[in-house]
C-alpha cells in the first residue's frame, strides 16, 4: 500500500539515508527501531515530504512518484491520505482541541461542518479527550496533547499514519496513556508506521519490525522473530543493550 524505493538523503554532504527500501501493507503496524542518528526520523520525514529526498521513489495509493521531482500538488495529494504524529505534538496553539481536529476536515478537506463535528467528537472520544474540547493545547499535559494530536491525525481517515517517536517527549508516567491509544488503533486495523524507542510496544504491538542503523536497514522481520531470534549480530547487540534499560 505504501512503498518507498532506494531513498537517499544527505544533510550537508553527510549521508543520513543510504538506499532505503521500505514497504507497508494495509493493516500492518511497522515499528522502526535503531540507535539515535540511524535515520529513522529522516526516513519518516522523507516519506511525508517534510524533507526532500535526494533520490528515491514512492508508491502510494496506487500512484508512483519520483521523490525528487514530485509536484506540490502531488505532495498535497499524498499528504491528504497520510496522518503524521510528531514527537513534539505540534498542536496549533491558537486553536482549541476541537478546532485542532476540525481544521484538517473543514479547511483542508472541505467536509461538511456538521459531519466534521461528528467525526471530531468521535475521534476525541476514541483518544479519551472529550472533556477537553474547549481547551487550548497550552492547558494540557504532554500526554493529553499527544492524544489530541493522534485524534487530529486519524480524523480524516488516512490510509496510513506515521508516528515519529510519539512518546519520546513525554514523562515516563505519561507514555502509557499514549501507547494505549496507539494499541487501540492497531487493534482496529489502522495501518501504522511507528519510529520508536519503546521496545515493549514494538515487540507486542507491531506486526513487523525494521531495525535501522547508519542509514540502512540492517534487518527486518516479524516482530516476534526479530526480537527472539535476530539474525544479525548488530541487531542482537542493540536489543540486548535496550533490554537492560527496560
Amino acid at each position, binding site marked *: 500500500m505504501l512503498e518507498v524505493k532506494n531513498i537517499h538523503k544527505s544533510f550537508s554532504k553527510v549521508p543520513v539515508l543510504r538506499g532505503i527500501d521500505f514497504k507497508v501493507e494495509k493493516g500492518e503496524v511497522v515499528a522502526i527501531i535503531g540507535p539515535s542518528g540511524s535515520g529513522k526520523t529522516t526516513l519518516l520525514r522523507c516519506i511525508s515530504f*517534510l524533507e526532500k529526498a535526494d533520490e528515491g521513489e514512492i508508491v502510494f495509493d496506487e500512484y508512483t512518484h519520483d521523490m525528487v521531482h514530485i509536484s506540490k500538488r502531488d505532495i498535497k495529494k499524498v*499528504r491528504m491520505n497520510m496522518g*503524521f504524529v510528531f514527537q*513534539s505534538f505540534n*498542536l496549533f496553539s*491558537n486553536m482549541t482541541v476541537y478546532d485542532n481536529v476540525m481544521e*484538517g476536515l473543514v*479547511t*483542508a478537506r472541505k467536509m461538511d461542518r456538521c459531519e466534521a463535528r461528528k467525526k471530531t*467528537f468521535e475521534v476525541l472520544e476514541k483518544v479519551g479527550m472529550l472533556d477537553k474540547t474547549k481547551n487550548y493545547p497550552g492547558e494540557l499535559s504532554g500526554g493529553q496533547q499527544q492524544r489530541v494530536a493522534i485524534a487530529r491525525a486519524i480524523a480524516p481517515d488516512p490510509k496510513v499514519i506515521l508516528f515519529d517517536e510519539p512518546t519520546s517527549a513525554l514523562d515516563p508516567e505519561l507514555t502509557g496513556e499514549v501507547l494505549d491509544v496507539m494499541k487501540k488503533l492497531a487493534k482496529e486495523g489502522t495501518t501504522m508506521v511507528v519510529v520508536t524507542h519503546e521496545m515493549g510496544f514494538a515487540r507486542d504491538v507491531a506486526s513487523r519490525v525494521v531495525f535501522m542503523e547508519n542509514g540502512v536497514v540492517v534487518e527486518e522481520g516479524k516482530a516476534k522473530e526479530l526480537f527472539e531470534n535476530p539474525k544479525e549480530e548488530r541487531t542482537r547487540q542493540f536489543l540486548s543493550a535496550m533490554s537492560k534499560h527496560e
Partner: protein
Amino acid sequence: MYYNVDIMSDRLVEILVSSFMRILIPGIKVTVPLTLLSFLLSVFIGLLLALVQVANIKVLKEVARFYIWIFRGTPLIVQLFIIFFGLPSLGITLNAFPAAVLAFGMNLGAYNAEVFRSAIMAIPKGQLEAAYMIGLSYPRAMARVILPQSFPVAFPNLFNNLISLLKDTSLASSITVIELFTSAQQIAARTYEPFALYCEAALIYLIFSTALTWLQRWIEKKLVWESSENDKDKDKDCGCGRNKAMIG
C-alpha cells in the same frame, strides 16, 4: 516664595488654561486620526513586505528589501518633504494631511515589516509542518496557523512603533498640517510664552501616549490563548447536537 508666584503669573495661568483646549482639540481631531490612519497603512505595508520575504517570492522579495533599505535609510522628515513639496513637480499634488499619512505610513511600514518578519520567524517550524500534514497549502497554513500566532508576538513591538508614530506626527507641522504641535506653536508665537506652551503640548502628547500604554496592557491580557467562559458554546452554527447517539 515670590519667585514661584512670579513665574506662574495670573496672565500665564490664564493663557495655559485657555490654550489647553485649543491644543487638545487639534490633537484629537488631527493628531489622533493622522496617527491611526498612518498606522493602519504601515501595518498593511509591513505585513505585505514581511509575507513576500518569508514566502521567498523571488522578485517581490528583492523589491521588499529595496523598499525597506530606502525607507529605513533616509530621514522621515526628508521623506515627508519629498512627498509634499517634491512630488508636485512630477505633477502629483497631495493635500498636507494625505501626504503626511502616506509619508508616515510608508516609513513605518518598513519598520513594521521587520517586526512581522521576526514574529513569523519566531513561530516553531513544527507548526507549519503540522499544518502541511493535515493537508493545508502554504497560504492557508499562513492564514490559519502562522499569522494568528505571529500577531501576539509582534504586538508589543507594533505598539511601540505606534507610540513612536504618535510623537513623530508632530513633524507634520513642517508641511502645514494644523495638528497638536502646530497649534501650540501658533499660540506660543502669539503670546511669547514658548516654555509654558511647549510644555503644555508635551503634556498633551504624554496624556495620549499614556492612554496608548494602558490600551496596550489591556489588549495584551486578551491575547493569551486559554479557554474562557465566552468560548464554551462556540460552534453552535450547525444543527447537529453533541449527544452520545451522534458520537456513537
